[in-house]
């Protein structure tokens, strides 16, 4: 009995110390958000954030970020798998390409996209065929995919790398094809990392501002996402901007929390089995 109690005691001390060490960053991350919430009195919120404009911007943000996430998962998963399981010449270059959007200032990324897909680039050809990309909702999604997909790819790659090669080999030996092995063995085992990456990418897409503003513009109802609405409001109406920011924080926090809870519950039996 005694050693167990001592061990628990030691664990408790360790937990207390760990918690204490974790607190500074947690407080630093939370304090500005709490400050934001504290400034948003119900009166301010009612007068500024519950209007049509805010609801439209929020919906546009949620929809575009979700589409950007689906696109990132579809086109990002093969990249992550490829980087995780194959060695080839120039791999480090590909690796760095994935990192590029993380270091590129978003507004510079926006101009790069504008130059490529706008009238100066292939946009003029697309325009002749009736498709405009720049300054449309499509540009919002494209800007978000450009900025957010590396977050998913990096996590997914780490997840795929952590799946033991023997398990994939065993699956193949038992007669499963590559697709079946991927969907029944690799993906379920990496599901935690895939999820974490998806959550990160969605959150990043939701908060995307600079690239979207330059590439897609700020047309209310069409390309004015929540972060852009926060910015345009801040120029002349700070309380409105704060109310919008609070709304975005609360909604995205709730969505992330629920998504995590729901998905982890679904994923655990899979990963465990």
């Amino acid at each position, binding site marked *: 009995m005694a050693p167990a109690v001592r061990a628990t005691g030691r664990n408790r001390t360790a937990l207390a110390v760990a918690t204490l060490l974790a607190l500074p960053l947690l407080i630093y991350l939370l304090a500005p958000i709490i400050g934001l919430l504290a400034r948003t009195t119900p009166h301010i919120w009612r007068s500024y954030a519950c209007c*049509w404009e805010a*609801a*439209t911007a929020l*919906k*546009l943000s*949620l*929809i575009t970020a*979700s*589409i950007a*996430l*689906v696109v990132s*998962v579809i086109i990002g*998963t093969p990249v992550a798998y490829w980087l995780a399981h194959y060695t080839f010449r120039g791999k480090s270059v590909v690796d760095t390409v994935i990192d590029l959007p993380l270091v590129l200032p978003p*507004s510079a990324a926006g*101009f790069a996209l*504008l*130059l490529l897909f*706008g*009238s*100066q680039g292939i*946009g003029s050809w697309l*325009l002749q065929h*009736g*498709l*405009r990309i*720049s*300054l*449309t*909702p499509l540009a919002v999604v494209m800007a978000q995919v450009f900025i957010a997909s590396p977050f998913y790819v990096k996590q997914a790659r780490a997840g795929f790398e952590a799946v033991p090669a023997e398990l994939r080999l065993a699956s193949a030996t038992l007669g499963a094809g590559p697709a079946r092995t991927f*969907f029944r063995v690799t*993906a*379920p085992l990496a*599901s935690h990392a*895939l*999820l974490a990456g*998806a959550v990160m990418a969605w959150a990043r897409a939701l908060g995307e501002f600079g690239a979207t*503003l*330059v590439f897609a*513009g*700020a*047309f*209310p*109802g*069409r*390309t*004015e996402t929540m972060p852009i609405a926060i*910015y*345009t*409001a*801040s*120029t*002349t*109406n*700070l309380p409105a901007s704060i109310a919008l920011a609070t709304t975005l924080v609360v909604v995205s926090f709730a*969505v992330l929390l629920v*998504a995590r809870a*729901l*998905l982890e519950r*679904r*994923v655990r039996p899979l990963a465990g089995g």
Partner: protein
Amino acid sequence: MGKFSWVVLLLVFLALPGCGGGTSPNATGSPAAETRARPTRAEPVRLIAFVGSASKPPAQEAKAAYEKQNPGVTVDMTFGGSGTLLQQMTLEKTGDIYMPGSDDYMDKAEAKEAVIPGTRAIVAYLVPMICVQKGNPKGITGLADLARPGLTVGLAEAGAVCLGDVSAQSLENAGLLAAVRKNVITYARSCEQTQQLVQLGEVDAVIGWDAFQQWAPDKIDVVPIPLEYARPRTIPVAISVYSTHRGAAQRFVDFLTSTEGKAIFSKHGYSVEPPPG
């Protein structure tokens, strides 16, 4: 993986029906489709306006009023920094109307031949003022007070922001530039940032525009600067060279500069008549 995608799709679909109502009037048809459509009287016309973000509230009100009076005409507005907007407009060779936050950007647009010469009109005037905390706790009565020891001042950066050039010029005209610079603790990179410095209490005073007071009426008071020191600037508007609806664009510009249009800007705190003197 599969299940996860389904949840995401579900989220998307949950959000979709609500969104349709809000965005469908604008969502149909890309700007390109409209700009290429031939403007006949019966056909609906869609104008694209690039508007400085500081003018968003009055501009949106003007848009709503104009669209109500002119069924079939839609004015799509995008907002942002005046420089970014000019870049977007010229890179994309699109848009019918350019309305930057101050006249120096219109000068740039004219130099780049992005707007049609002779279409420039004035929507509102920007009158330089000293902006102080509500109630003027430091008792600032004029430019000379900004040089008072212990006072903190914020200025827009000359060379970067139109307001910065105006502030520096006013102080130089008053012979106070060197003295006031000693009190300057920060230079702002935009008009909005300059206004936020005083609104958030970071400084005791900034040199700003008269409209700043209206953006935060319960935080900011203004102290006039004698007109011999400070030249007012303007919020201009002009028709883009890329416009494919010049007639319709001109009619909207006429509306902005009409009594009705000016009343909207006046309501939002802008001077719509040139200051006397």
